[in-house]
């Protein structure tokens, strides 16, 4: 005689499966506990410790950290030399972000709208492949490209454009003895390294704009420029904002690129690196670290206010 309800299968594995099937919340709970503990304790916890450190100060005489609450470390950030580091880094991050967005948009638009089959595969390969190779290798490669003896100088000579290159290098602030020792060089490498992080989210956002929105806009009388301004761009904005979070915050925190390609003036990342290492000034290093966090928080808040996430 057959039964409708099968007999309970023997074995511990089956028993566990049965329990989880009947109580899916239990499975969710067990799956989430380890990562939540990790994030809660290790991640947020260390961040909190960092925040705490920034409210301590360094005793100038003994070189020891004074474990007393004070805002004096933050006051140090406002001193001219430190404020300049912050201003320099934020300006660089903003320029890198804007430039990346401008370069990334047409590429992302092409990939989302027109690339199909092999050209789409090629797009993904071209955007992702640089991410597979070592960051340091890429930066050092750029140092060679930008060096006085490098290919750019050589190319400028071949094209008889050496006067142009020298003219650019002679510019105040952004120029320098060679591209590899100038802000311009640092800027170029930043844009190169972070560009994929801007292209991919922009492309993903554009991919979600259905063709018939563009047709509907044209149908209602909008020429391609108006359609871009009123339909395509607003709908791609969340992707651009997501990309800019990457490019902006990665530039704010990076200390390797400006170290290898650039002049001796510090960026925030280098300042943190020096302060917590050789200088042993953990409180000021912590205070410097808080700056990008505050800037990002303000940036996201503004993006939200502007409605950048409304369509998500």
């Amino acid at each position, binding site marked *: 005689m057959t039964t409708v309800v099968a007999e309970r299968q023997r074995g511990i594995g089956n028993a566990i499966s049965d329990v989880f099937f009947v109580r899916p919340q239990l499975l969710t709970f067990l799956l989430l506990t380890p990562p939540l503990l990790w994030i809660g304790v290790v991640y947020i916890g260390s961040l909190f410790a960092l925040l705490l450190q920034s409210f301590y100060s360094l005793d100038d005489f003994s070189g020891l950290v004074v474990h007393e609450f004070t805002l004096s470390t933050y006051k140090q950030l406002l001193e001219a030399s430190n404020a300049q580091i912050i201003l320099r880094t934020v300006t660089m991050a903003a320029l890198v972000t804007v430039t990346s967005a401008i370069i990334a948009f047409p590429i992302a638009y092409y990939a989302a709208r027109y690339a199909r089959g092999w050209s789409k595969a090629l797009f993904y390969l071209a955007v992702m492949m640089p991410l597979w190779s070592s960051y340091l290798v890429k930066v050092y490669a750029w140092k060679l490209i930008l060096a006085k003896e490098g290919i750019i100088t050589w190319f400028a000579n071949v094209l008889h454009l050496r006067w142009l290159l020298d003219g650019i290098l002679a510019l105040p602030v952004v120029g320098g003895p060679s591209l590899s020792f100038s802000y311009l060089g640092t800027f170029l490498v930043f844009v190169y390294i972070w560009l994929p992080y801007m292209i991919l989210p922009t492309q993903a956002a554009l991919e979600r704009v259905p063709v*018939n*929105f563009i047709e509907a*806009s*044209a149908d209602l009388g909008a020429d391609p420029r*108006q359609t871009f301004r*009123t339909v395509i761009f607003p709908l791609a904005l969340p992707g651009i904002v997501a990309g800019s979070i990457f490019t902006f915050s990665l530039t704010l925190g990076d200390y390797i690129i400006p170290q290898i390609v650039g002049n001796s003036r510090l960026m925030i990342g280098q300042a943190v690196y020096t302060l917590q290492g050789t200088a042993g000034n953990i409180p000021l290093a912590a205070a410097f670290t808080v700056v990008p966090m505050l800037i990002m928080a303000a940036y996201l808040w503004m993006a939200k206010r502007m409605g950048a996430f409304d369509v998500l």
Partner: protein
Amino acid sequence: MSFMSPAVRFQNVSRRFGSVRAVDGVSLDIEPGEFFALLGPSGSGKTTCLRLIAGFEQPDEGHIEIFGERADGVPPYRRNVNTVFQDYALFPHMTVGENVAYGLMIKGVGRAEREAKAKDALAMVKLAGYEVRRTAQLSGGQRQRVALARALVNGPKVLLLDEPLGALDLKLREQMQEELKTLQTSLGITFVFVTHDQGEALSMANRVAIFNEGKIVQVGTPSSVYERPTSRFVADFVGSSNVLPPEFAAAHGGHAMWTSLRPEKIQVSSKNNLVPAACAHATGTVTAISYQGAVTRITVATGKQALIASTPAGTDVRKGDSVTLIWPKFAMVAMGEDA
């Protein structure tokens, strides 16, 4: 623009996609003020025709005129026609009011005026007060109405509707059919709509063009295409029909041509009734009975030819019964042969 120019004129229009002729030598006049249906199975070219009128597609051959003006090469944003899209294509980053006012904003109409017009348009589709809602908060039927208001607020010469009721459930669809008809009559705008639903085409349109494989196979009023199909395809696609081969038709008092006989014209009789002179008859065995609410469809095998009769519900015929089928001879419509 001449006085008598049709609202839309297709002159031998073809549109190819690769090697496929989506629209193949179509000529058609749609008169001003008509409620015109493009009916056909999917892939028959009806949607491409609508997109040719809208300007999303351009003809590879032939010409299109809208109210006497040549439209070939004119992009959609320079045509005074508007479209209600199949999935409505409402902009998700705008409110309902902004969606409706979009076309006016593009034209540079001032804020106060376009808001007033958008408000009127929403009232016209019975969505007064919905201006500030987001489109995500609307039901399917409401989105449909917003899409309609967004198109009509621009005062188009021709309104194009792409499967306008396809995504709605049955009750809502019937209601919207009525509303669209009323709206069209009161506005007097030429409506052109695409559908694969023959019932919808017959009940809403003044005239219907039936498409098959990129060509128009018949144009006419709903009753003419239903009562007098000119091809087996139309007989079969519009409503359902018994398509009789020439020999069978000739043997039953018709012409020796492919012939259409509508199921509802056939009476089913289980007794050997007297057959009036104006009627034809056939005897056979019931092979299937399908209850469909208002009617019951009875399939009868008569020799080589199976016939379907549609009778009012509540028949006492059973499967396996021997029955006589009786139909008026004039109900047999001879069609021009098509393969």
